[in-house]
């Protein structure tokens, strides 16, 4: 039973990444979205690792998991007044969470 | 952008004592402030009306429990003025000795509270270690470390114990070396200067208008020390210098810190001089039981001007006692000190102002 570990790893990481990106777009809370974004980018880095580019993987972790989500969360926190209760109102039909849309409590 | 109100207290690790400071912050900057006091109000002025004159000394001790003798002494002065009795010289000198030891203990407690506010946790333990020495002196002199019930109407409770001046000299010599160590820890620390200079500034005019007294006022450059201005006891025969901030830009936390710190050195001087000059003789005059009249006494407490106004109506209890607490007036001036500073400075500013809630709330 010869398992192609590269293919298996690639499939698992891609599945995680796709799931993460769907969760980014469908999360009701913005901070959750930022967290899933971090996970998505880390799994992309994992794919870089499968392709044997360790340097790019580590830089990806350093920048995209260490700095960019923090920047996003800062942006969210500094621009919203009631950060504790931001929820996209359920009667809207679009699935993207857009900050600053009126109608938010 | 509007600010929102933040409660610092009443349960807060670093507001010393039980009071609440509401600050309105806009981002990190303080826009307004409002102290809420009265959590420790015990109804002193009313209680003192139902106790005999001498028994009130037990209560006045607990007004500012960190600096008990100064408060009881102010009360005794007011009652003596009302009764028209004169304290014998030895009693007056012993009072000066006890007052200065108590002032040192109080300032050390302030230092022990101020240092950890800024993050210097080592300062807490060092200052308390030194305070233990002075509490030992007080125990030797009066029998208790705090809330000593020492001043009496007409003098003091007991005479100086034998060899007391030798102990004082030993402790003061040791303490002066420690003060140099503290200076190395605090005055020359760049971070300490960064945290306290220019922070919590109040102008001299504002301070006088709001009734700020004591080291807080002297830090603004105003030379008012009631031990010099209206000398009581034998302070006019003692050679000391009120610590006034003579630089240009006073009134900030650093100036308050330096003034109070240097007062400790002056207190050491006064202590040794008073011990040397104490004459022999009686230390207590007999006070009448009943009295009628008004007595008014103003003293330089560790925190400022403590004022007692006692009215007697011929009974053996006071008819009315009015207490003026320095911290009460300074607390009203704290919003001025706080406005414009950052939220991280609140504890630094309030620590430098030396709040004692007991006397503020009475």
């Amino acid at each position, binding site marked *: 039973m010869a398992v192609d570990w590269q293919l298996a790893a690639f499939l698992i990481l891609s599945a995680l990444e796709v799931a993460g990106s769907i969760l980014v777009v469908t999360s009701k809370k913005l*901070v959750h979205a930022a967290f899933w974004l971090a996970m998505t980018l880390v799994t992309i880095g994992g794919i870089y690792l499968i392709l044997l580019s*360790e340097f790019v993987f580590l830089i990806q972790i350093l920048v995209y998991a260490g*700095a960019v989500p923090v920047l996003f*969360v800062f942006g969210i926190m500094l621009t919203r007044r009631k950060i504790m209760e931001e929820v996209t109102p359920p009667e809207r039909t679009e699935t993207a969470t857009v900050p600053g849309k009126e109608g938010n409590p | 952008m509007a600010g929102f109100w933040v409660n610092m207290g009443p349960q807060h*690790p670093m507001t010393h004592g039980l009071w609440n400071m509401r600050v309105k912050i806009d981002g990190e900057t303080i826009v307004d402030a409002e102290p809420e006091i009265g959590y420790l109000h015990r109804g002193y002025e009313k209680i003192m009306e139902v106790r005999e004159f001498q028994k009130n000394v037990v209560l006045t001790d607990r007004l500012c429990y960190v600096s008990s003798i100064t408060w009881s002494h102010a009360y005794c002065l007011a009652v003596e003025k009302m009764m028209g009795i004169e304290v014998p010289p030895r009693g007056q000198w012993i009072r000066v000795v006890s007052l200065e030891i108590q002032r040192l203990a109080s300032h050390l407690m302030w230092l022990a509270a101020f240092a950890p506010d800024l*993050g210097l946790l*080592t300062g807490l333990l060092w200052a308390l270690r030194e305070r233990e020495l002075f509490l030992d002196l007080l125990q030797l002199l009066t029998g208790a470390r705090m809330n000593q019930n020492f001043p009496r109407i007409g003098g003091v409770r007991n005479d100086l114990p034998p060899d007391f001046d030798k102990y004082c000299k030993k402790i003061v010599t040791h303490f002066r070396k420690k003060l140099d160590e503290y200076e190395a820890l605090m005055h020359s620390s760049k971070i300490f200067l960064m945290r306290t200079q220019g922070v919590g500034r109040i102008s001299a005019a504002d301070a006088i208008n709001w009734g700020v007294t004591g080291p807080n006022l002297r830090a603004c450059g105003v030379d008012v020390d009631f031990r010099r201005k209206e000398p009581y006891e034998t302070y006019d025969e003692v050679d000391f210098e009120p610590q006034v901030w003579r630089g240009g830009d006073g009134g900030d936390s650093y100036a308050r810190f330096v003034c109070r710190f240097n007062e400790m050195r002056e207190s050491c001087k006064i202590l040794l001089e008073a011990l040397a000059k104490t004459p022999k003789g009686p230390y207590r005059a007999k006070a009448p039981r009943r009295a009628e009249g008004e007595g008014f006494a103003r003293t330089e407490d560790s925190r400022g001007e403590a004022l007692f106004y006692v009215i007697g109506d011929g009974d053996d209890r006071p008819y009315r006692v009015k207490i003026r607490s320095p911290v009460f007036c300074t607390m009203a001036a704290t919003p001025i000190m706080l406005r414009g500073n950052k939220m991280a400075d609140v504890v630094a500013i309030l620590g430098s102002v030396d709040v004692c809630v007991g006397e503020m709330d009475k």
Partner: protein
Amino acid sequence: MSGHLVAPNLFELCRVLIGGILGILSDAIKGAAPPGSPVEGLRGLGDAILAPWLIDLSAWLIAITIMVTWAAAVMLLTFMWIERKTYSRLQDRYGIMISVWSLPFWPFSWWAKRRNKPTHKGLGWLQNVADGVKLLQKENITPAKADSPMFHTAPVLIASSTILIFAALPFSEGFLIADVPLSLLFILAAFSLAPLGILIAGWASNNKYTLIGGMRAAAQLMAYEIPLLLAVIALLFYSGTLNVIDIVGAQEVALLTIGPLSIPAWNIFSIPQFLGFIVFFVAIIAEMERIPFDIPEAEAELVEGWLTEYSGMRFGLVFGFKWLRAIAGSALIVILYFGGWSGPVWYTANLSVGGAVVPIPIIPHEVWFLLKLVLLFLVFVWISWSVPRVRIDQILNIGWKRLIPLALLALILAAVFAAFAPLPAGIR
């Protein structure tokens, strides 16, 4: 063995160990099932457990367990103890003094009772264990309106990223988990995962104060990562490699030999690297969130800052791992600037093990590393407990306006030195 005790590699050592154990087990199974017996099928099992993939897997698991236990249990507890004792002595008091006679089980309780031993006249190392046990048995309270998934995930992020550092951080040439070509970058990347966890922790607690604390912490950590990385880049001009083991190896050569003494070519002895060291030193104190840079956790205003709402072992993990990051930070400085684990080794009489003759080093590389680590950690503790806290805007001021220009200066100097004053061949 060239000076390190765990040789050639932690993994190899574990593999030998596991191979030995599995071999004994396999022989026992084969012995219990001789060829003619009814349970002959077990002989196949005896062969199967000697499969290479099983041995490798078990060896990896054992190696990882040893490393994590060493770092997060032994070293963490010991360094917490060192800090608590040191700052207590700075404060003129004895510090934690619990002794082994206070343990509530046999044989300690029995002997202590028999001999009337005092329970608090000891070293105090067990106090941290006691504190850990206390935290374990506390209730894990989740605040009412806290964002539960994020509230629970944040400590996981912080703790796991901190432990991840030790996957690539070596304690000597052999005492490591993995010798990856880019281990320095790996360590720095693992360091930089924490701000996200801290920010989420502060936000998810549904508390104005923890939010402020979390934002301050994230701002501080991100501000100080830049001079950290710039100083490392300045170092790269000299070392030319991001592999931690090669960086230390380059520092083992002698810079100057005076008679019997030789000064090794530690990176701190060169001018641009000394500047880089100063920058790195200040930046790592901020990354470790120690006083003078611990406003995010300032007790004076925000009780515990961003981790106020955590209780029980969640708090214990996050709070205790602050010391793990301190160990990792000190280890980084020792490796990058102070020659890592290099030091005179001195060999003792040889030991024959299984036919081979093996020299055992006295004062091996691990000991030198730990020695330097402890000394550097003591410097950090000393600084922490003698200075007040810096205000957050002053912290950010220092980070952005003072450290980054200094780091850039170190970078430029390093580039100039590397171009025009290259080190002699042999010293890289």
